[in-house]
């Protein structure tokens, strides 16, 4: 009898059921979430096929349309890259994101160091709270805050310019200012959040390192250089890998809401996300915009893999996976 049950447990089929039974309850708990992922993350992967199709919507449902519409291979991609837009859009996306990645590490780390060093901890709380505030506002609200300064007729900046005898500037049609405005506002909104991440990591560093260093006569700068920054490296690396993976993604609100979708600014504000959205909403070019979306996802995936590989080669501890 005993030998029999042992044998039964070893047979793969019974093992599967036994395992299933033992995990039944936890399985029930994780199924709803998995179903959500099936619908909102995995089902859209079929939508990628649209990039290879001459897709037309008719009344017969999405999958019917998908399988009956003509397959055109890489034609959509060819169209995308032969249009003059593609180069500008990719250039904008990459250059902006590259700037954001550099500033997104440098500015918050410097701010976290400053906040950590100042003597009055009460003030530290106030500074931290003020700088965190923009993170909680939506891009729509932020765009109105910016509009209060840049409104061509009533805005604050033009009032100041006129007070000093200058000509008012038509902010929403002058593209030369926007790279700076976009970079500035992206830092404005995000620096508080990132500062908190780094500040939390700095606070987690063992104080005895600093005490020992101070006793050995290390200056504040040396302490930062030889203790704080090296110990922050893991956090910086993980955030870097993640942002490298996102170098082809753009914050839609920043590039669409902030310039108020202004046409003359497209050369400096059009990025992959806004291009895809406009192609979908205005011209209905589903095939070409899905080609752009697939291009975006694929390059992002490849980049995150490469970044992770490089990091794991240099320092296996800090790799993402």
């Amino acid at each position, binding site marked *: 009898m005993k030998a029999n049950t042992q044998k039964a447990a070893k047979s793969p089929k019974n093992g599967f059921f036994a395992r299933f039974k033992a995990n039944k309850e*936890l399985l029930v708990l994780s199924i709803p979430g998995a179903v959500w992922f099936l619908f909102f993350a995995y089902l*859209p992967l079929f939508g990628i096929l649209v990039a290879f199709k001459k897709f037309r919507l008719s009344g017969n449902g999405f999958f019917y349309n998908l399988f009956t519409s003509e397959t055109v291979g890489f034609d959509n991609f060819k169209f995308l890259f032969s249009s003059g837009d593609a180069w500008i859009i990719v250039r904008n996306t990459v250059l902006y994101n590259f700037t954001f990645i550099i500033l997104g590490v440098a500015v918050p780390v410097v701010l976290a160091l400053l906040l950590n060093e100042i003597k009055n901890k009460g003030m530290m709380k106030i500074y931290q709270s003020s700088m965190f505030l923009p993170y909680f506002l939506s891009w729509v609200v932020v765009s109105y805050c910016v509009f209060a300064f840049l409104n061509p007729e009533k805005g*604050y900046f033009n009032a100041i310019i006129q007070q000093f005898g200058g000509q008012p500037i038509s902010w929403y049609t002058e593209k030369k200012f926007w790279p700076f405005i976009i970079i500035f506002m992206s830092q404005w909104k995000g620096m508080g959040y990132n500062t908190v991440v780094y500040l939390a990591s700095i606070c987690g560093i063992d104080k005895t390192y600093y005490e020992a260093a101070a006793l050995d006569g290390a200056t504040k700068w040396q302490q930062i250089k030889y203790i704080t920054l090296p110990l922050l490296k893991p956090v910086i690396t993980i955030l870097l890998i993640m942002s490298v993976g996102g170098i082809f993604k753009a914050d839609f609100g920043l590039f669409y809401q902030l310039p108020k979708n202004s046409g003359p600014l497209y050369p400096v504000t059009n990025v992959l996300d806004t291009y895809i959205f406009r192609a979908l909403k205005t011209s209905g070019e589903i095939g070409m915009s899905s080609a752009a979306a697939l291009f975006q996802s694929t390059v992002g995936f490849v980049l995150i893999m490469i970044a992770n590989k490089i990091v794991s080669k240099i320092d296996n501890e800090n790799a993402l996976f």
Partner: protein
Amino acid sequence: MSRRKMEKRIKKIEAEECKYNQIKNSTNVLFNVILAILSLICVIPFIFVIIISLTDEQSLVMNGYRFIPEKFSLYAYEYIISAGESIIRSYGVTILVTVVGTIIGLLLTGTYAYALSRKSYAYRKFFTTVITIPMLFSGGMIANYLIVTKVMMLKDSLWALILPLCLNSFNIIVLRTFFKTSIPDAVVESAKIDGASEWRLFFQIVIPMALPGLATIGLFLTLGYWNDWFNAMMYMDDKNMIPLQYLLIQIESSIDWLANNKAMMGVDGITAAANMPKETIKMAIVVISTLPIIFAYPFFQRYFVNGLTVGAVKE
């Protein structure tokens, strides 16, 4: 000795220990000045919007936006209360979507994260993979749009505002880490020996013990829903069901349209357009749509900081 007194004493001792390790007074002043300027830059634009919303429409048209207006007026807010049905309805939509979305999101994130946090769960690896792949590769905007509108038929449905945002891999990972670190295995094991089912374990033991973690995720979700306009822009054509943030995007064009077409309209249109405080009302809607966040802000911030610290811990 009370806990507060203890903490105070510990802080005092720490402060004394730190003394020899502090920056010079002049450097301290410099750092404070830099940080104060940055803090002001972060806060002032929003304060400016509040001031504009409280300015009298006439003096605003005459002088433009000013930090110290000639004349204050509450007319924009009065207009919203008396004639702003669509604005008030949008407020309702935002609140409904935020509350329902946060509850569903918390439930889904909580149960999934709890299952993943249990070492004894045999399918843990599989379900971890399920959430990792979407972090690395996604169908993108168009694919999502097609699935939500053409397969799930959610266009012009409030579910289109709720469902896409209720779950994400990042929240699950943060909460799983939180469960792992805050709930000792021994507690779970002993409850199991006492015959508690996983359901009871989750609802009666895990949830009460992990409240700070759940609050963090709840706040992430609440903020996400409250500030969302993108899903409304994609999926909402029905003017009766748009949330506040999207109303703010639309009101720009509808107000401009009213202003530009005054002459083309009948008498009613002219009076309606003339009585509407065009400039201040936009800013007033910005303010009322942000007010709940500003009031909840101190609470928000504390939990966000906790959440970020937890999220930063790897595995």
